[in-house]
């Protein structure tokens, strides 16, 4: 027998002076393989056209429909209602600027951190020859880079991060993962010292408290925990270069799951 879902949605329009933040209840009949995204669309089409939420691809690719679902950040299109209890509470993602109801502006935030970490391949542009054959890359390495590049910047890991909630300038898992992506890219010519300048501070890797909220909510299952660990260890060892003997540093660098600069 299908359930009648009680969906409680956070309502607030910051642009309307009369609007007050409050929760509003909606009821939807559940059917097989219904996602939260479908339920929200039914609410908007049949009950209240003013409910604001973002979506684009409905397949977990665009990263627009990130929201807090019963306390955990996740993608609405990726979440089946059958995996949730009858009472579903929805909030917009914290940390990001609220546009209205469940819709937040993740773009401005991600652009700002992208600029901070200089999220592009740093190479000698003057040496670029348009007529030369494109540089080749091992397939395994390309796949490794792609694995980290799968991030859709939905903002779930940032909203699930206790550090990001406490400290506005913390870069967050998605950003550090992005740096890790350039770190393993052989076309990026930045050295360990250069990467230290970018994320070797309390806004970057050393601000992370290892709470693993990011790891546990990431809808794309990107290996955030491992990437954070790898980058932190690399930069921590870099910071004590010259203090500890080189032999020990090299040994620690190659222990465990550690990708190296190719």
């Amino acid at each position: 027998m299908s359930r009648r879902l009680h969906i409680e949605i956070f309502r607030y329009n910051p642009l309307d002076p009369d609007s007050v933040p409050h929760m509003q209840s909606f009821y939807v009949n559940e059917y097989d393989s219904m996602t939260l995204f479908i339920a929200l669309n039914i609410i908007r089409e049949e009950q209240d056209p003013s409910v604001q939420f973002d979506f684009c691809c409905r397949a977990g690719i665009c990263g627009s429909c990130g929201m807090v679902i019963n306390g955990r950040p996740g993608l609405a299109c990726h979440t089946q209602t059958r995996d949730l209890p009858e009472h579903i509470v929805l909030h917009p993602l914290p940390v990001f600027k609220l546009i209205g109801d469940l819709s937040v502006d993740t773009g401005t935030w991600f652009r700002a951190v992208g600029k901070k970490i200089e999220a592009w391949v740093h190479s000698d542009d003057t040496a670029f020859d348009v007529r030369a054959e494109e540089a080749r890359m091992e397939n395994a390495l390309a796949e490794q880079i792609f694995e980290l590049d799968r991030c859709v910047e939905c903002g779930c890991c940032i909203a699930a991060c206790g550090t990001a909630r406490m400290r506005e300038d913390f870069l967050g898992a998605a950003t550090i993962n992005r740096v890790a992506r350039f770190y393993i890219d052989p076309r990026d010519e930045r050295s360990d010292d250069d990467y230290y300048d970018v994320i070797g501070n309390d806004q970057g890797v050393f601000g992370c408290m290892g709470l693993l909220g990011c790891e546990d909510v990431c809808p794309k299952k990107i290996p955030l925990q491992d990437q954070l660990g790898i980058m932190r260890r690399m930069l921590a060892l870099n910071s004590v270069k010259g203090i500890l003997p080189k032999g020990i540093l090299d040994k620690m660098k190659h222990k465990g799951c550690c990708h190296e600069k190719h």
Partner: protein
Amino acid sequence: MSLQNVTLHVPPKDKLSGRLDVLMMVSGFLLALFVGMHMVFVGSVIISPKLMNALAWFFEELYLVQIGGPVILLVMVGHFILGARKMPFRQKEYVAFRAHSKMMHHTDTTLWLVQVATAIIILVMASIHIYTMLDTLPITAAKSAARIQHGNWMPFYIVLLAAAAIHIVIGLYRIGVKFAVVTRENRPKARKFMVYLLVAAAVISFLTHIRLSLLTI
């Protein structure tokens, strides 16, 4: 490097953040190691009070207690200051984190608050403990037993031991996570191992206390 930090024409290369992070990890690990050894030392009373007395005599003859005690206190205070850089002392931070941990219902997130609380408990109580011990040297099983049996120190030690064991177990797990020793693959195993470690510490401490409270002085 953010523009706000560039106050000189040539910003200095500064590795402080990383070094403090390493120092926090190393000091925490050493303290954990010390507490482990401490537990074995006091636990030796389970086998025989004579063994504990002999060990105590050995450490004191080498001045390990007289010098080591204050050093451990210093390392602990240092470790606290390093950890306190992350603690939510400002009301805004605390409110934000509390709201976050309530929202998430996420063990690893909640455990961090436990970590902060136990840190403060240990800082105060371990300081008292170190002072009392150094004030009443030499250490003997009979004196420890008297403290437990007549000195009303039992509740004090139960709280201190529980706080230390919990703090260390969470701390070791966190070091593992931060430096990619605990990975996505072995995380469930690591968590299980930490629970076993906690149980082992609890059992040894429990037996030690039973032995001390039954010891005829």
